[in-house]
């Protein structure tokens, strides 16, 4: 198991995740603005504003700058005839093996943002688990979906 899976997900995922981080940031920003208004109106202690500002800054640094990069760097996958091999996680690194014969069906899904970036998420279901590879290139995801579903000879009812 020393060898890591070779494939990486699309580099465009980075931009996408930064946008997600940005959306999260703007929601927090709105809440903070509300807080500041409330502080002024009802003369709450000033440190609430300070804490909110600090949290905002940390959120921006972590979720827009650091996390997407780390996440992208860690995400690797490899699909062979026998297995699907995944590796992901920033603090908790998970390495998962799914034998091809266990795969029951494969789906690709695409939200509006993903569509804009021509990306697609593929989810692989077994009888007990679902595994997702996020933000693959659209065509790559489609190719993968077809190859997995043709490779996965769905086992009979013994699951």
């Amino acid at each position: 198991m020393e060898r890591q899976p070779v494939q990486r997900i699309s580099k465009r995922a980075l931009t996408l995740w930064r946008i997600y981080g940005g959306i999260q940031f703007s929601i927090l920003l709105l809440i903070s603005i509300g807080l500041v208004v409330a502080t002024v109106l009802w003369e709450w202690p000033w440190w609430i504003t300070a804490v909110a500002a600090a949290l905002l800054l940390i959120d921006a640094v972590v979720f827009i700058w650091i996390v997407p990069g780390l996440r992208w760097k860690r995400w690797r996958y490899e699909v062979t005839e026998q297995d699907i091999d995944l590796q992901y996680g920033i603090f908790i690194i998970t390495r998962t093996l799914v034998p091809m014969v266990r795969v029951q069906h494969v789906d690709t899904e695409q939200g509006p943002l993903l569509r804009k970036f021509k990306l697609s998420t593929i989810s692989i279901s077994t009888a007990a688990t679902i595994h997702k590879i996020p933000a693959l290139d659209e065509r790559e995801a489609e190719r993968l979906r077809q190859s997995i579903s043709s490779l996965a000879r769905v086992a009979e009812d013994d699951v």
Partner: protein
Amino acid sequence: MYEPKRLHPISSVINFVKTLKDAALPLLLVFVLNGNIFSGDVDWIPLLIWIGVLFLVLISGVIRWLRFSYWMEEGELRIEYGFIFRKKRYIPVDRIQSLDFSEGIFHRPLNLVKVSVETAGSTGSQNAEAELTAIRREEAKELETLIFQEKSGYVSTGEEADDADIEAAQSPREKVYGMDMKDIVLMAITSGGAGVVLSGVIAFFSQIMDNLPIGKIYDEILDWIQIGVLVVAFTAFVVLLIAYAISIVLTIFRYANFAVYLEADDLIITRGWLEKKQMTIPINRIQGIRIDENLIRQPMGYASVTLISAGGSVLKNDEHQLRMLPMIKKNEIQKVLKMILSDYQMVDEFKQPPSRSKYRYMIRHSWLGFLAAVPVSIFFFPYGLLSISAGIFLVFLGGMAYRDAGWNAYDTQLTLRSRIIIKQTYLMKKHRVQAASGIQTLFQKRADLSSVKLTLTSGGGAAVAQCHYLEEKDVSHILNWYLSSRREEKPAES
């Protein structure tokens, strides 16, 4: 069997009772909120409404019975039901895995059975399952014979199947395991069921406490504490004792006459006194085996064996149903397994996590306990400090968890042993494992440690076997075991 048939009329009563049971809590709540019946201070209108509702439930039970019909047609078990929305459920016979018969208190005097149809459902697809609330035993037998004849490709033309065919279709049952009364009583005494009953009683008492005039009590609280503590402690002790006794009696009733039979390719488990239950588990649907040893039973050398099965309906509803051997001497498990699932082996030698994992186990088990002890100690100052001892107990438990963790990969079987509170040993076959993961935090990575997680199918969901803080190379070994030689190795029975 080929014409639409009704269930036995008693099913309308069963429907009624069942709906009532489901609605028992809201009903009770209404009575409680409705003022005190005993003091005559009753609000009549809501009460009348509820009597009306009760009546409607009874009527709906009758209508449900009237509108429910089932029959066999074109190799399908067809069921139609529903009052306003007519629902049709056609289950192809090939999809039917087994029919399970059970008897409740309403069934027994009338010689009826409840039939649960179990199908080969998987996640993704809708589980087609069905229940015939009450039919005559002979009808049930006939249905069973018919279904299994059709299943085996032979389509019976007449209404009555040949007796000889029935004889041929039923292979002899072989009893592989039975529990004697001594084991059942011992199991009842050492079960965790007491805790469940107890929490119910506590919930009940907390309801009553809410209705007490708190303000008045608060004034007298100092006096009350002096004598009160004794009274409360005594009451708690009595309640505990009663709860324990109830749980023992319930367990005895539930597990009386427990026996496991082997019939062709099915495992059949029967149990119960008042309510007789029978479960059928096709052996090729069994995904793995779990052996549990709780803190009380382990020193006595007893364990319980649970089957992890990919089965459908019945298995999901009742957690007890999968228990194949609820209470057995650990050293006798192998003997029984050999008769049923001979490819599973009990293992004695385990590769354990390294000693540097020990303090990690202790922290993992106890950090939450210690964290909770901080506010408890502060708010209930002198006595609250006792909560720290709970944390210390958890440290001790963590040490046990470290000692019990281990793995063994031999041939096609992986055995994984771990403990949270109960010591659990999973026996897994390579071709039954759905996915395997190695999981590592950055801290663990620095210490060359890793956790391993294997997922099996269980009912509609998943059973997860996990073991923490193993050597990184051991986890690699397990993942490699999972990878290697899968090509030549094929499931034998499918």
